[in-house]
C-alpha cells in the first residue's frame, strides 16, 4: 500500500516520527524539533487524553494544521474514545471538522466510527488507534478489508518478532510506541480506571485521573492514592510518583511487589534498528500531557536517531545518555523476557 501524503513532492521518511502535540505550543515545538508528523485531539471527550488544559479548539487545530503543513509536517487527529450510546454526534462532528480543517488522518478506535469516516470522508486517511486493540494480522486485515484503514497503531503487548510476523501478513502500515508511558494491559480493553474512579480511557479519555488522586502523610513518608486506594508509598525525601493504577505496589500471594508493572517508562531509542527491521512504518512518542521542554528533547533525540539510522550510522551515545538520565526504563513487551 502506498502512503498517501499531503504533498507528493515531499520525501517520505524511512521511519516516520509521530510526535505528541497536547497543546498548540507543543505542536509548534514538536514540528520545530523535527517531527515528521504530530498528533493531537479536540478539547472534549472524543480523544483519549481528555485532560484539563490540554488539546485544541477548532480554530487552534486549523492554525496548527497550517503551521505543520507550512513546515512539511503532517497532522493526525485522535478521535479515539468510544462514542456514547445515543449521542454519536460529538464524535461524528469531530471527524467532519478534522477533515474540513485539512488534517492528514483521523486516529479512530470505534468500529462504528471507522465506518462513518469511510462513508463520509473517503479521502481522509483512517488510522486505527491502539485503543481498538487490533493485535493480530487477522484483526488488522479485517479493518483494512471492511473499512480501508491505512495504518494501525499496535498495542504494547507484542514482541518485536510478533510485530515482524504481523507485518509479513498485512499491507497496512504499522506504527509502534517507542517512548513514553507504557500500558501493561491490552489497550482499549481495560476498565481498571473506571472501576476505581468512574472515569475510563474508553468512555472519558482518561486513566487514573488527577481529580481522583491524593497524597497523604504516612509516618515521615508519603502515600500516593487513587480513588482512596493506596497505590504506592514513598520514604521521606524520595520523589513521590503519580499513582497510575497499574504501576503501584500491591500484595498478592503474601508478597509485596510491583505486581503489574514497575513505574518505568518505555524507551526503544537503542533498539531502532531492530524496530525498523520488523517492518514498521512509523514510530510513536507518547506524551500529549507533557510540556514543551520534554517534547523538544525527546523529538530531537529520536529525529537524530532516525536520521542516523537512515544514513547507516550508529547512534550517538551521548544523545542516548541525555535522554535516559535518571528515569527507569524498559523495552516492555517488545523484548520477550518481559513476559
Amino acid at each position, binding site marked *: 500500500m502506498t502512503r498517501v501524503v499531503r504533498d507528493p513532492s515531499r520525501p517520505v521518511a524511512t521511519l516516520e516520527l509521530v510526535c505528541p502535540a497536547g497543546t498548540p505550543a507543543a505542536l509548534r515545538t514538536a514540528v520545530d524539533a523535527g517531527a515528521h508528523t504530530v498528533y493531537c485531539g479536540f478539547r472534549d471527550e472524543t480523544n483519549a487524553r481528555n485532560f484539563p488544559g490540554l488539546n485544541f479548539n477548532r480554530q487552534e487545530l486549523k492554525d496548527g494544521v497550517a503551521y505543520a503543513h507550512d513546515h512539511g509536517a503532517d497532522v493526525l487527529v485522535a478521535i479515539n474514545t468510544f462514542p456514547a450510546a445515543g449521542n454519536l454526534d460529538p464524535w461524528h462532528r469531530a471527524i467532519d471538522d478534522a477533515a474540513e480543517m485539512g488534517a492528514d488522518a483521523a486516529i479512530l478506535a470505534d468500529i*462504528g466510527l471507522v465506518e462513518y469516516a469511510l462513508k463520509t470522508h473517503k479521502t481522509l486517511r483512517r488510522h486505527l488507534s491502539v485503543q481498538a486493540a487490533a493485535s493480530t494480522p487477522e484483526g488488522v486485515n479485517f479493518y483494512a478489508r471492511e473499512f480501508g484503514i491505512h495504518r494501525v497503531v499496535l498495542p504494547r*503487548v507484542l514482541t518485536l518478532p510478533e510485530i515482524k510476523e504481523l507485518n509479513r501478513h498485512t499491507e497496512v502500515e504499522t506504527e509502534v510506541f517507542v517512548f513514553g508511558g507504557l500500558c501493561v494491559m491490552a489497550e482499549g480493553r481495560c476498565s481498571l480506571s473506571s472501576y476505581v474512579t468512574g472515569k475510563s480511557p474508553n*468512555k472519558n479519555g482518561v486513566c487514573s485521573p488527577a481529580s481522583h488522586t491524593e497524597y497523604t502523610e504516612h509516618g515521615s513518608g508519603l502515600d500516593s492514592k487513587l480513588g482512596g*486506594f493506596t497505590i504506592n508509598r514513598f520514604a521521606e525525601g524520595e520523589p513521590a510518583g503519580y499513582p497510575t493504577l497499574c504501576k*503501584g505496589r500491591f500484595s498478592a500471594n503474601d*508478597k509485596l511487589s510491583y505486581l503489574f508493572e514497575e513505574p518505568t517508562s518505555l524507551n526503544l531509542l537503542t533498539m531502532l534498528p531492530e524496530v525498523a527491521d520488523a517492518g514498521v512504518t512509523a514510530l510513536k512518542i507518547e506524551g500529549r500531557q507533557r510540556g514543551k521542554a520534554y517534547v523538544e528533547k525527546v523529538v530531537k533525540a529520536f529525529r537524530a536517531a532516525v536520521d542516523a539510522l537512515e544514513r547507516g550510522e550508529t547512534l550517538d551515545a551521548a544523545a542516548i545518555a541525555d535522554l535516559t538520565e535518571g528515569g527507569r526504563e524498559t523495552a516492555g513487551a517488545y523484548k520477550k523476557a*518481559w513476559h
Partner: protein
Amino acid sequence: MTKASAKTAKLTLGPLLFNWSNDKRRDMYFRVADETDIDTVVLGEVVCSKRTPFQTPLWPEVIDRLTAAGKEVVFSTQALILSSREMSAMRDLVSDETLYFEANDIAVDDMLKGRRHMIGPMMNVYNEGTLATLAANGADRICVPVELSGAATGVLAASGIMEVEAFVFGRMPLAIAARCYHARAHNLAKDTCKYVCNLDADGMTVDTLDGKPFLAVNGTQTMSYTVANLAAEIPALLEMGVSRFRISPHDVDIVHIANLFRGVITGTTDPAELLNETDGLIDGAPNSNGFFYDVEGLKYKTAE
C-alpha cells in the same frame, strides 16, 4: 425493542473464567444440567490458551449432557490472541459449524462473518453504530461490556439491532494482558507458569500496601475484587428490553444463585434476599453495581 417479558427472559451461565480441574468443572455443568432452569450455558476458555488442552477432552460429554437437558450451548473464544498458533486454534474451533460461538476479539468475529454468532463482553461495543456494524457481520446477540452503564445498555436494547444480555453476577473481567500476573506473584514466567492460577478458584485477591482488598487476578486477566450483582436492577433492565441475564461461574453454590436470580426475574424473590446471600460470599468481597449507574464500578448504589 420494547419491554422484555419476565416470563420469557433467559438466564445464561457465562464461561468459567477460572482454572478449575476437569472434575470440578464437570460437577458444576452436570448440576447445572440437572438442577437449574438456566437456559443457556457458555463453555470454552476465554483467558489463557495454555489452559485449553486440558479442557478439550471434557467438552463433548458436557455439551451432550447440557443439550440433553434442553440447554442452549454457546462456545466462547479467547479474549486476547497473541500468536499465530493461538489464531489457528481459534480457526479450528470455529470450523465446527454445529456450534453457536461467542466472539471476544474482532478477528474471531470476522471468522464468523455471515454466520449467526454472539458478541462477548470483552469486545468494545459502546454504542448503536458499532452494534449495527457487527449485526451486519452476522452477530445476533451481545453480552454488553461490564463497564457499560444501564442507560447505554438501554439504548442498545431499544435499538432492536440484536438481543441484549447483561452481566448480572460475578467478579467483573476488567483487563487482559500479555503478561501473567498469577505467574509473577509466584516468581514464575508465563512460559513456565506451573498453572498456578489453579490455586485460586475465584481469583487471587490483590491487596493495597495497607491491606485493603483491591482487585483479583486470574492469570493474564485482572478482575474486580467486588462481585457484581445487578439483582435490584433487573426490573429496570427488563423494562429497557434486556432479555438475557448472565451469571458468571464462581466456587459457590451456583445452582442456588441461579435459582435465586430466576426468582428475581419472575418476581417471586426479593432482590434484597439475593443481595444478602451474595454479600461477602466470595472471599468476603462485597456486592457492587456502580457501572450500571455510571459511577465507580466497585461501588454499590441503592436504586432510588
